[in-house]
């Protein structure tokens, strides 16, 4: 079997076969290889480890029309136009059911692979999209942290990992990836995540490019710890004592290596499962291909936007949920086909829920507490947490019953197998959805 070291090395060589790998790179990979002999490191960086896929529902998903409390009179009273009746839902209990736009997720619930966590939020909720998104992504309700919860996971739990430990399929890096050492990578499409020559003599130009973007073995030795094993960036960026140029050269090398890997995998692996054309499906399709290609990625991050349903919510919201349902269905079928279904857990989140009362435009305004989904074969399905009361409200909003950091703690400890305290900067009560 090819080791990761061999893989990286062959990719590097493959990218420009006529150039020898500089001494420095070779040494670094040797060191990397030695580090990963340590079992703990192997566990978090290997190709067989657990994978978390985070799906952001951007804009504030209306939890009450996602997991519908159809058995509550207060719900129907608050939403004369938007309320779903018993026939519009997939009944999960005498009190609540799933919006019928999500038939597949309903079936997963019945099979025990979907956990729905109710009433998720945090103290002193903020109704700004930006601030609340930032709070979820940094896991810091005071909104002061400049690193994200996933970035802190990469830094704390994945030493020696290369930057593909975290991949977001977004045009801008999500705040949750903010890290001191290893912020993962972010790309919108593999085709654009590369140096684009756009001119004559492509092969020659790319050889020159590769050569110019490789640390100069002869002249400057990399700073202590400066290597692909200690990747670049983060909001605060860089290894202490490293010069700006050495840092830039390191990032350039990381960019080339990860770009080559991703292009190679994207070209080689096509999904056997069928995905529809929604942007979320396209992103999840890419995630599926990256997993099939054996990237050592621990966390993928994708976004599904448009949940800010201030007016004419009926129809719009169903369409969004339907897209979520369809793309997750394809994705899970894809993983099953690959034989990777038992390695992947999907978690959704949204910055907030919506107000209990509908507004005069047939929509809902920004609220507090909402529900979220955790999905996958390893998940212990069912309803988790307590559904918030629809009559005991705070300024017209649901009062949260589960702190979102408790969900993060559960995922970190019971799925990614790492202590959550250094990452979440506190102890949060775990839930039972990971068994």
């Amino acid at each position: 079997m090819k080791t990761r070291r061999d893989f990286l090395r062959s990719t590097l060589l493959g990218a420009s076969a006529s150039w020898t790998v500089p001494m420095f790179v070779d040494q670094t990979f040797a060191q990397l290889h030695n580090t990963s002999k340590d079992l703990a490191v192997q566990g978090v960086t290997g190709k067989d480890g657990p994978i978390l896929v985070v799906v952001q529902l951007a804009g504030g998903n209306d939890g009450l029309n996602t997991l519908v409390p159809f058995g509550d009179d207060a719900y129907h009273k608050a939403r004369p136009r938007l309320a779903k009746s018993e026939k519009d839902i997939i009944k999960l209990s005498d009190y609540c059911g799933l919006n019928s736009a999500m038939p597949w997720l309903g079936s997963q619930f019945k099979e025990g692979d979907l956990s729905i966590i109710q009433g998720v939020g945090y103290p002193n909720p903020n109704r700004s999209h930006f601030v609340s998104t930032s709070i979820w992504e940094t896991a810091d309700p005071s909104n002061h942290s400049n690193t994200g919860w996933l970035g802190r996971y990469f830094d704390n739990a994945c030493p020696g990992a290369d930057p593909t430990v975290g991949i977001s399929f977004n045009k801008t890096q999500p705040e949750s990836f903010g890290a001191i050492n290893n912020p993962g990578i972010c790309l919108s499409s593999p085709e654009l995540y590369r140096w684009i020559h756009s001119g004559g003599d492509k092969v020659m130009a790319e050889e020159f490019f590769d050569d110019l973007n490789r640390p100069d073995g002869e002249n400057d030795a990399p700073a202590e710890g400066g290597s692909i094993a200690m990747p670049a960036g983060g909001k605060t960026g860089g290894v202490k004592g490293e010069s700006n140029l050495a840092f830039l050269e390191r990032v350039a090398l990381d960019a080339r290596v990860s770009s080559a890997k991703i292009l190679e995998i994207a070209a080689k692996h096509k999904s056997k499962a069928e995905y529809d054309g929604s942007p979320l499906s396209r992103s999840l399709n890419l995630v599926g291909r990256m997993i099939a290609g054996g990237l050592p990625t621990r966390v993928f991050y994708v976004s599904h936007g448009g949940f800010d349903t201030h007016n004419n919510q009926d129809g719009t919201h169903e369409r969004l949920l339907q897209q979520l349902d369809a793309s997750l269905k394809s994705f899970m079928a894809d993983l099953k086909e690959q034989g990777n279904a038992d390695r992947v857990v999907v978690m959704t989140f949204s910055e907030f829920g919506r107000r209990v009362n509908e507004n005069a435009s047939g929509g809902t305004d920004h609220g507090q507490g909402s529900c979220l989904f955790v999905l996958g074969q390893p998940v212990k399905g069912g309803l988790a947490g307590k559904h918030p009361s629809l009559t005991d409200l705070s300024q017209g909003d649901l009062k949260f019953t589960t702190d979102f950091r408790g969900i993060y703690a559960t995922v970190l400890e019971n799925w990614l197998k790492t202590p959550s305290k250094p990452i979440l900067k506190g102890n949060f009560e775990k839930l039972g959805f990971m068994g």
Partner: protein
Amino acid sequence: MLPQAPDSWTIFEAAHLLNRAGFGGNPDEIKALHALGRSKAVDSLLNPTEPIGAIPMPAWANREQAIEDMRERGKQFIETQRATQGMSAAEAEKTRQQSFKTAQIENRQHGIEGQGWWFRAMLTTKAPLREKMTLFWHDHFASSIQKVKLPPLMMLQNDLFRRHALGNFRALTHEIAKDPAMMLYLDTQTSKKDQPNENFAREVMELFTLGEGHYTEQDIHEAARAFTGYQLNRMQGSVFHNRFQWDDGDKTVFGKTGKFDGDDVINLIFDQPQAAKLMAGKLWEYFAAEDPPTAAVEALANSFREAKYEIAPLLREIFLSKEFYAPDVMRNQVKSPIQFLVQLLKQLDLQEAPQGYTLVAQQQLGQVLFMPPNVAGWDWGKAWINTSTLLTRYNVAGFITKGAQEAPGLVASNDDMMMQDGEMMDESAPNPAPSGQQFQLFRKNASDEQMANGRAAAARFWKGPDYDKVVPRELRNRHEDLIDTLGFRFFQAPLPEAHRKRFLAFAEEKAGVIFTNHEIAELIHLMLSTPDYQLC
């Protein structure tokens, strides 16, 4: 006083000054600055002849016009209220939506125009240090259009920064406390006698003047009471002090007690020696290098205090210091995305940028004007760079150098940019009444998409620089001279020998009988696709 450098200097030192105290320039501009000698060159940057206002802002950003527009909107709002009386709730809401829509479209259009205006001002101004300091203040006293939402107020604030760019730190701090955009951004507007909001009081000490550890929670608590009573008239963009909303009781701040108001607290802050220290260190980091030595900061802070917080003498001391031209300072700053874009265009003798493109580039490179991520401003230095932003820089350089015919454009993001998708800009006030949404902006609608498409279309016709002018034909056959000339244009320093050899080899490979503009563009793109080029 820091040890000073002699008046005679190298052309590389002149280029370094222009890069840091401005946004760089083409070789002619560097030579002209060099000819002045060090001290006269610094003076020319500190005393620009171009008056403020030489590059006129869009008409709507002019104070009188902005007030007029806001009044007009206020009137329309009242008319809409009147018209909706007697309608059903749904009809009334529909009418309101219609009437807000016009305002929303206009605001989005203005937000984009304002960003474009400032970017072009940086590119074309003959007073680059003033613009560079305006950007410094924007980062230091950060406010974002994402929360402020009214483009004219952001432009008024921008004008304030420009007028005080080389002025007085203490005076500017007094002004910013009463700046409409800042008041909205840090909630001074909602700070009332009975419920003082501590947001501004905290940030003015923690981020703007003293730094953490140089005040107590009690100081903030008391200062917040002093900052009550300032109120903003949104219809006029003016601020007044409402004595009835001001807490007129005794406050104790830094051990002094009195019936302080906001101005009194700011005066007390500037009596603290630390106020000079934080700013001196931050300016050194902005212009010279990270992690300034303590002794240098102390020396600068002393001068700054003696000069009563005047900025120009402090900058003069920095730019004339020996340390500013030290080998580990020169060519060792990671360019910010704005610096990268403006400097790139200037180096290619471009007076304008492909419309719309630079805005999307700002977003993907991580620095959008008028949108700092939070009150602490942007994270500078290495934080600008990750694998994705580095590859994007390389490809942006490809588009600018090769033109739209050859190079792919950027795909506008639809996840968090006000220009592409209004939804994320659409922040509801906690107030559930629809009337509370009168200033909601940037909603998504069809005409916005058309606008975005229009900008994309403009970028599609980008032709690239005029290479006949940038790289004269007679130079193209002399490959060594060509590489050295281009090396100076783009790096302002002798090229490392290894890189020089590679560029030369590429030129030898590329050049046929004649070195075409096409091939020149390829060579330049390659030179810019390097870790080195990210430094200035």
